[in-house]
């Protein structure tokens, strides 16, 4: 049977992280407060160890909370990735159009130079075409 209220894993993990952090800090506040009589040293050591263990749990659930947040957007990321690839391909199409026109322009200049029989112009036009082709 499905739960009446769906569990938001990000919220639940976050709440647990906050809970363990609060417990850890409560222990540290108690440990560092003035007590009459003072807390024995061995007990102070144990309180510190327990506070650190609780903080470790808080870190664990923080990692879980981040993971749950990222899990919730996986389909969004997949769609964005697809559209990005399409946009890059579209830029490629525009670049191809430009390149085709540039090649045709360079090739035409070479043809004109050859027909005119001017060696210097032929060399210049051939160089320009080669550069366009390798661009």
């Amino acid at each position, binding site marked *: 049977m499905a739960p009446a209220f769906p569990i938001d894993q*990000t919220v639940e993990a*976050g709440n647990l*992280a*906050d809970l363990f*952090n609060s417990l*850890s*800090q409560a222990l*540290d506040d108690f440990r*560092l407060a003035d007590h009459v009589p003072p807390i024995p040293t061995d007990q102070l050591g144990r309180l*510190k160890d327990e506070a*650190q263990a609780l*903080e*470790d749990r*808080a*870190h*664990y659930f*923080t*990692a879980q*909370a*981040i*993971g749950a*947040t*990222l899990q*919730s*957007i996986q389909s*969004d*990321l997949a*769609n*964005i*990735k697809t*559209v*990005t690839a*399409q*946009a*890059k391909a*579209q*830029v490629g*199409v*525009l*670049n191809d*159009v*430009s390149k085709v*026109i*540039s090649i*045709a*322009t360079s090739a*035409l*200049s070479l*043809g*004109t130079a050859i*027909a005119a029989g001017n060696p210097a112009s032929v060399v210049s036009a051939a160089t320009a075409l080669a550069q366009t082709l390798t661009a």
Partner: protein
Amino acid sequence: MNLIRAQIPALVVTCLALALVSCTTPDAVSKFCGSAATTLTSAIPIFDDMQASCLREVNSREEFGTFKLPSQSDTNCTAIGTEADGAKAAAQLLSDYFSAINSLASFGTAKAGTDAQNLVTKTGTAVGASSAAQTALGSITQFLVSAATSGYQQRQLEKDLTKVSGNISAVVSALVTIVHDDYIGRQLASEEQKLADRYREFAKDKSPEVKLLLDDKWQADEQTLQAKRASAQSLITALQALSKGFADLAANAHQLKAKGVPGLLGPYVTQLQALIPQIQKAV
């Protein structure tokens, strides 16, 4: 009649040129997307600091004066780092998207037109056409190629902007949650609190002079943490502006040539460009 015929090419060119002038290139789109991509790249060091903050907290558990080498790894901090890498990857993916849209928006369709004009003019010379005919043909070709590439550019931009409108918002919202709730609200907050505990513990039963020295050191550490918090807050503000700006852009994707678009996006660009140095400050 001959005079009118001679003037027709010039009239056609003038009409086409006027039509071209009224088209606005998506320059505003390009500027917005460029700023968005830079904002997202600026987020990377903040996500990197999530694991580092966890390790700083772990290392603050040692008492002052033990001179123990700081721990470089901790199981739970490593887990936080792994998830933070996921957030980095998400930010990078968004940045790639905005960079791709930037490239598409800033493609010089005018240059394609000019190249085409040169081609037609040279062809005209080669076949011995009159100079007036060459000029008219060249201008028409320039317009047609510019319009064709510009039309393609506009159509693709409209598609690429509207297809992911909801997705961009969702991902940015997730990144804001991670920075606000997990980095600022949990990591930095607990690091700050545990650092304060370390100073409190050491200051117990110490002379006033030692306490004053400790207080100076504590203030310096506190300022470092405040700076990190401020950078992260700037990132949150920037991400929210990015999300709103993109929503406005996507809503107007069908009319990117409208004169109102630059005015719509301008404030977001200004805001992002002001926030980027603040994000980069402390981390």
